[in-house]
């Protein structure tokens, strides 16, 4: 099926999907007037408070860092409040995309081809493919599966992962009879990382599809939602990107469960609020979204930024830029408010969260280049600015506290001034700040208590209330620690230290005390020094800054507590609707993951190199790998060099080789075939202990080698051949 011509955005008047101009303008005017009024009020109160003894440089500095911080607080506050108002408004939102669907659409065949793409980089193979299976089966239930093709686009440079991905692809296709519907592609050189991976897909296969749904390695989406999103795109040709709200799921640690609870409770209101003022100029978050491919291919290829990393070079956070480019091309980028059907996983510990934030921080800081670029829609420019501010606000907050300390330490400073008007301004500002921080949560929680939007039973609503109190306390403790780390990230990036591309850990892996102490020891020390200084300044100041200091002092125990799997679930705390009643797509995946987890384990050294062992010993996996390599030529390396590595590989085992050496032999067709026979034909004394053990254990451990990667029970083996 070839895609029909997509209407161009140069049409007179907005195309369906793009909110009417007057609506968008009115909404933004309302939102930004409220935000600016709040910011001006706060700034004025601070100015009154500080101006008691004239203006000094530290007071000017404090004012400068205060303004953007207070703007950010106001933006969050009004987004949440508008969101709650929209959720409770009796009439439908006139620009709601769901309303474009009619009852007749239910069950009607789709008229477009859709590619579901899953870019992966050294991810947990079982999780990726079991997730894909669940989505595939969910789509099958909708009766629209024939319109969807799945592409796992691998950039994995860990040889074990690479082989496991190939095996998982083969086995899943075999089990589901999905040859010709699920595809696997591995790039030899991961040029331009994830965005390069997606661009490569677009160049090779993009023309065959009208839409692509982008997944992250940990994404999960229900078939019903994906079909609905496709229908919405079909009905609204002005839509370029439709982003869903991915809910966090499957967390096991306290931090993960806290985040997924907070997201479930507060997320929908914030989403509604963001949707209100962003309208057709929303952001793309890189996954769990559907994209119109033709304009994406035409307009959204990313050029490198000037200068070198970390500020320049390849664009890391490509999603915001792609959204801006799509909008620049005249297509709307919209959020689709949804509470079910779109899921992702989050980091299990504070350290994993910080590692992720480090990457995001660099990506967002790079957008500084784009703030002043030509031709953006003003809202796209603002989105970039908000992205930069989300990380720059940490050093601003840090400087705010430093300036406050300096002011408190200076005799006759504003903080100590007790004149009536100045003291009143100070108190008003304090209360205003408290309201801006906590009122949104209070309003959302009250809304939940009254409406039972999340939970119907009263007991669960009360548990949600207690959980909300606890999460507010824990997040308040976390915030200063995050501020310190984010400030360091920003500074490091400014000083020219980039980040490496590392895969994300998404599952709990136990508490690593040493790593935690080494990571957070410095924060504790900072807390101790700052406490001593504050103590000597005045008791009043110590009391004022104590919430920050307590957080810094407790960083290590807090990180340990947050990484723990003692997450309060048995007390009914931090529950989410997905935990109580897992949606089919999630329940199915979790059952399969549990089956694979419960399999017989091989010795650890073999488990570590399982993929490598399989490609060398298993005749089918070896055949598969060679078949997938067959179109490639590998002429850069000499035969003698490859033979020499292969000899060491057999005699000393995989651990004796460097990753690039393993990569060299596994990329060469001839060597891979020869390794298979050479290993099997070598006498015991010619083999490394690893191979002796592997040959003996391989057949014993699994009568079917694929139990290692994918669930087997309950999945009928369809021995369906590959399609012609």
């Amino acid at each position, binding site marked *: 099926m070839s895609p029909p011509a997509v209407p161009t955005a140069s049409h007179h008047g907005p195309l369906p999907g793009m909110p009417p101009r007057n609506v968008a303008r009115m909404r933004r005017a309302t939102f930004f007037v409220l935000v600016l009024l709040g910011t001006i009020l706060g700034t004025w109160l601070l100015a009154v408070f500080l101006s008691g003894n004239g203006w000094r440089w530290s007071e000017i500095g404090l004012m400068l860092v205060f303004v953007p911080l207070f703007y950010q607080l106001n933006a969050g506050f009004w987004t949440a409040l508008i969101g709650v108002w929209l959720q409770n408004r009796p009439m439908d939102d006139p620009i709601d995309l769901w309303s474009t669907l009619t009852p007749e659409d239910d069950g009607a065949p789709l008229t477009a081809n859709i590619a579901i793409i899953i870019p992966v980089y050294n991810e947990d193979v079982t999780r990726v493919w079991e997730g894909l299976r669940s989505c595939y089966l969910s789509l099958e239930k909708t009766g629209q599966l024939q319109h969807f093709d799945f592409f796992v686009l691998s950039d994995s440079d860990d040889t074990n992962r690479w082989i496991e991905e190939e095996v998982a692809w083969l086995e899943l296709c075999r089990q589901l009879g999905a040859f010709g519907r699920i595809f696997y592609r591995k790039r030899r050189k991961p040029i331009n990382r994830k965005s390069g991976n997606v661009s490569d897909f677009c160049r090779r296969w993009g023309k065959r599809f009208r839409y692509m749904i982008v997944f992250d390695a940990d994404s999960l989406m229900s078939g019903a939602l994906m079909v609905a999103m496709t229908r919405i795109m079909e009905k609204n040709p002005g839509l370029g990107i439709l982003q869903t709200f991915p809910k966090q799921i499957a967390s096991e640690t306290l931090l993960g469960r806290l985040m997924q609870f907070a997201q479930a409770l507060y997320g929908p209101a914030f989403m509604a609020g963001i949707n209100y003022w962003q309208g057709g100029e929303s952001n793309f978050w890189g996954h769990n979204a559907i994209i119109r491919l033709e304009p994406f291919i035409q307009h959204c290829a990313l050029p490198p930024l000037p200068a070198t990393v970390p500020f320049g070079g390849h664009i890391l956070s490509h999603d915001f830029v792609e959204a801006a480019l799509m909008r620049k091309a005249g297509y709307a980028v919209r959020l689709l408010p949804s509470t079910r059907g779109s899921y992702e996983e989050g980091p299990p510990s504070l350290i994993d969260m910080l590692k992720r934030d480090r990457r995001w921080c660099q990506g967002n800081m790079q957008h500084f280049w784009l703030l*002043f670029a030509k*031709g953006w829609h003003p809202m796209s420019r603002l989105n970039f600015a908000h992205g930069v501010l989300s990380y720059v606000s940490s050093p601003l907050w840090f400087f705010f506290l430093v300036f406050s300390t300096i002011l408190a330490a200076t005799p006759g400073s504003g903080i100590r001034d007790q004149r009536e008007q100045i003291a009143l301004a100070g108190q008003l500002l304090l209360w205003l700040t408290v309201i801006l921080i906590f009122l949104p949560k209070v309003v959302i929680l009250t809304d939940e208590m009254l409406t039972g939007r999340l939970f119907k039973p009263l007991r669960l609503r009360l548990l949600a209330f207690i959980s909300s109190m606890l999460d507010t306390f824990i997040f308040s403790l976390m915030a200063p620690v995050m501020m310190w780390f984010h400030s360091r990230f920003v500074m490091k990036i400014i000083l020219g230290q980039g980040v490496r591309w590392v895969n994300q850990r998404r599952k709990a892996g136990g508490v690593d005390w040493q790593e935690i102490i080494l990571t957070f020891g410095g924060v504790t020390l900072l807390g101790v020094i700052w406490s001593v200084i504050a103590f000597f300044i005045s008791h009043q100041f110590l009391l004022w800054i104590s919430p920050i200091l307590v957080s810094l002092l407790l960083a290590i125990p807090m990180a340990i507590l947050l990484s723990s799997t003692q997450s309060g679930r048995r007390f009914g705390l931090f529950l989410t609707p997905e935990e109580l009643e897992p949606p089919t797509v999630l329940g199915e995946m979790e059952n399969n993951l549990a089956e694979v987890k419960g399999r017989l384990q091989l010795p650890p050294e073999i488990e570590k190199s399982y993929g490598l062992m399989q490609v060398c010993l298993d005749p089918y996996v070896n055949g598969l790998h*060679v078949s997938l390599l067959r179109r490639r030529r590998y002429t850069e390396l000499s035969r003698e060099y490859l033979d020499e590595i292969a000899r060491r590989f057999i005699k000393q085992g995989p651990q004796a080789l460097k990753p690039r050496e393993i990569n060299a032999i596994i990329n060469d067709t*001839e060597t891979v*075939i020869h390794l298979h026979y050479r290993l099997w*034909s070598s006498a015991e004394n010619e083999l490394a202990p690893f191979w002796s053990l592997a040959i003996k254990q391989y*057949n014993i451990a699994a*009568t079917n080698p694929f139990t290692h990667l994918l669930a087997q029970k309950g999945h009928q083996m369809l021995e369906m051949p590959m399609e012609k």
Partner: protein
Amino acid sequence: MEALNIQFAPGTGTEQEWNEAYARLSDYFRSYRLHNRIRRTQLILETLRKAADAHAKDPSRKPTDHAIEQARLMLCHWLGRIYKDMQMTPAQLEASGRLGFHLSGGPDKWPHFFLDEQNPPEEMAEAMRIAVRTSGPRMQVSKMTPRDIDLGLTNVAEDTFDRFGKYPYARYALLLLLVVLVLGYVYKLLK
């Protein structure tokens, strides 16, 4: 398929070496997921006999080495016969051929005919042939060329002035304001 004949008396090599070759061949055929033990034993003996002949001609190599080499030769002949009408290189024949047996469900459906050159059932051969035919959508290459993003600060200024140019009253008001401010400052200085 010939009847099982357990006679095996190699003229060269030690008992220990042949035992090792037997154990290795057993593991090797198990890795093909051949769960039928009788067929596995048949194959091991058949291969060992061929290996014994080869070892007699070249005793410098170990029996295990000969045994696996013979298994490979048997496999290549068997696959060559099944895929004879398909244009495949030796490497493709070995790799894709093996995979074809797995994908067609051969280990469960036709274990007795694995490496049986004489009587491969046509149904099995056809299933194996279909299984190795290419998969995947044909590529339809399209261009996705990055366009330069003009990042200059001057452009923003230009943009602003361009936009400003569309509103003459605002432009004149700004100009007037500037003049008033300059005049006011001069007045303050002179006062």
